[in-house]
């Protein structure tokens, strides 16, 4: 900052000014260095949230053609009685619970299988990670074609096997499970990746001790690996939880919230309100509620994590002793 100021301040007492500015920098270094980061956070994160919060208190709606007036909590009152919004909240939780549940269980299981030496392990791991690398909208398009009830490959294969052919994303009852399947396909690899990193970082002595004591493979997994892996599992779950709550791309790309409103989650609902109905004030109030939900779920989850995680560390010796008793 001092060097920027210098050319403009080309007056005789240059040295003293330069010295003064150097002193200024020295004295305020702890503020100056984080300044760009602080400015970034303030401009691109704090300001939008505050502005959204402000908008949520206005009746800003292009459709009515009236000026945006301050209406207090009016939007929130409307939300509380909006059946479509409440249904979207429920749907968001159902989708998230199903998707994250399956992804974490499946992801940990796959990671445990991969955490061994065998031929082609690296290749298999790379292949498994591919879905995560693909563009979500492209994934949506591919699954859209595969799910097509009449001409799609999924029902074609089911017909060949003489199995019932569901409507998948075209059926109001099957659309959420069908979307969960796509999310699981896409994001289980991320859980695998995190779990593999966690496994690689585990200490080796408990395992050696267990082997010496004659523990079976299943016992080692159940009583040593998994408890030690709890912090990793919590992190993976938390990351997926936040992501799944705000899933937008695959739902928008595949169903747009349909059939009817059967797959309209909170994000899709907000999008409709903002960019299809142009009810910006109302959409902002949904976003604030959504923000509170994501924040609440994250805080709840991290507080859960703190309690069981500590006992696990303390239990470590106990866990190791257990197999010897078996």
């Amino acid at each position, binding site marked *: 900052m001092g060097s920027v100021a210098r050319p403009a301040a080309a007056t005789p007492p240059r040295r003293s000014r330069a010295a003064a*500015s150097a002193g200024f920098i020295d004295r305020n270094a702890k503020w100056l260095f984080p300044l760009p980061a602080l400015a970034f956070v303030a401009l691109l994160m704090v300001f939008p949230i505050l502005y959204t919060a402000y908008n949520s208190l206005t009746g800003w709606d292009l459709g*009515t053609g009236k000026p945006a007036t301050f209406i207090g909590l009016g939007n929130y009152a409307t939300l509380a009685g909006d059946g479509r919004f409440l249904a979207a909240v429920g749907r968001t939780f159902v989708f998230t619970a199903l998707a994250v549940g399956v992804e974490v269980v499946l992801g940990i299981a796959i990671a445990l299988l991969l955490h061994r030496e065998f031929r082609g392990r690296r290749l298999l791991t790379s292949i498994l990670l591919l879905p995560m690398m693909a563009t979500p909208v492209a994934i949506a398009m591919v699954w859209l074609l595969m799910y097509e*009830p009449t001409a799609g490959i999924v029902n074609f294969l089911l017909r060949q096997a003489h199995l019932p052919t569901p409507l998948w994303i075209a059926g109001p009852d099957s659309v959420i499970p069908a979307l969960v399947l796509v999310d699981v396909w896409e994001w289980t690899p991320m859980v695998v990746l995190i779990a593999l990193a966690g496994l690689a970082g585990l200490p080796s002595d408990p395992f050696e001790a267990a082997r010496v004591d004659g523990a079976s493979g299943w016992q080692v997994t159940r009583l040593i690996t998994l408890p030690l892996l709890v912090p990793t599992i919590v992190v993976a779950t938390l990351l997926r939880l936040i992501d799944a709550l705000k899933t937008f791309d695959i739902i928008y790309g595949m169903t747009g919230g349909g059939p009817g409103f059967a797959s309209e989650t909170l994000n899709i609902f907000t999008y409709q309100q903002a960019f299809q109905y142009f009810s910006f004030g109302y959409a902002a109030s949904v976003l604030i509620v959504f923000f509170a939900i994501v924040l609440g779920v994250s805080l709840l989850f991290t507080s859960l994590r703190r309690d069981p995680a500590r006992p696990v560390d303390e239990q470590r010796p106990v866990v190791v002793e257990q197999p010897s008793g078996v």
Partner: protein
Amino acid sequence: MRRSFRSSLALPVLALLIAASCGPSGGAPTGSGDKPYAGTTLRVLAANHPWADALKPLLSDLEAKTGIKVNFEQYGEDQLTQKLTTEFTAGSSDVDAFMQRPLQEAKLFAQSGYYQDLNKYAKDAAKTPADFDLGDFSKASLETEAVGDTLTGMPIVVEAEVLYYRKDLLQSAGISVPKTLDELKSAAAKLTDKGKEQYGFVARGQRSPAVTQFSSFLYSFGGDWFDLKSKKATLDTPEALQAFNFYGDLLKNYGPPGTLNMSFPQASAIFAQGKVAMYTDANSIYQNMLDPTKSQVADKTGIAPFPAGPKGANMYNVTSWGLSMSAKSDKKDATWAFIKWATSKEIVTKTQSTGAVPGARKSVFETTEGKSKFPADWSTAQNASANGRGYDRPLVVQVQKARDIIGTVITTAIEGGNVQGVAKQAQSDFQALLDSEK
């Protein structure tokens, strides 16, 4: 320190302001003679639409004639609306011309003051030579573009609902082409064999896209969305209920699985795969069925006028797209030169003959070139729609909200749910929407 910092900032900021105020302004003809707008660049936002695809290669012709260079951006329909709304709400003057869907957006955009009234240009002899011939645009198409006294855009694409049918299937079943909706229903019943994956009828079933194609059914049963004069919603009248049930039954009983998730890309694809005998949709998408590179049944598909209901054949016949000028554009004369060029007889003839996009100019349909891309039965159906309704969705400001309200009744009918109950709810929701616009 503080002062030096401020003064170091002041100079560049001042320079920037001066530079900004000296920028190219007006967009009035700068040169003279051959290229009156040499050096002018316009930003045009267009949709991913065959019309835009057909126009794009012709832009060099505009540059050769006028010197105007066009930055042509294309987006999906919804993304375009979103982009325009965002830019205009922010007060941007970057957009000069844009494609819009008059029935979807004109009232909203006009209310928000986004449009430059084109009457000022099109009816000014100094700005528009007589051979542009405003009277050549069909009256209905100009009316669709008018909001009050404002001409919001020049009509560029028109469309009407028609019946696509499989000549071979109807013939082998000994059925003549349906002329009434009753005949359509019995033909659909006869041509459905679910075991063989052969279905009698398909149409859009997706909540919002279905509304426009359902409109011809509604009108032909004698119903409408609302009474224009009294602003009373009419979604639960006996006629409307009949139409909802009829449309829903057709798709539920004789349609392929999954119609609830079908807009025109899906519905026309399943027709093009030869799995469906009849399909009602816009005539502007006929190439999806009749182009051999897109359709397996191209040589077996016929086009007929929309069948008559109990109250006659009241299909929609609308201007689906127009070309508009932004009220905030700072190059309005050049922008009008672009719009005038793009909607001139010469260029419309080209977009219609190379792009197969039906335009709004009557004279072009009378030329060999203008007709060349359209099959004879397409033209017959088009002529039969001449007196169709000029709207395919309710004429309100909050069109999308209205479509979602109405679409819920359609999807309920297709699922075989409680149509009457849902229609009643839709009626009150829609009435609330109408009241909010009073």
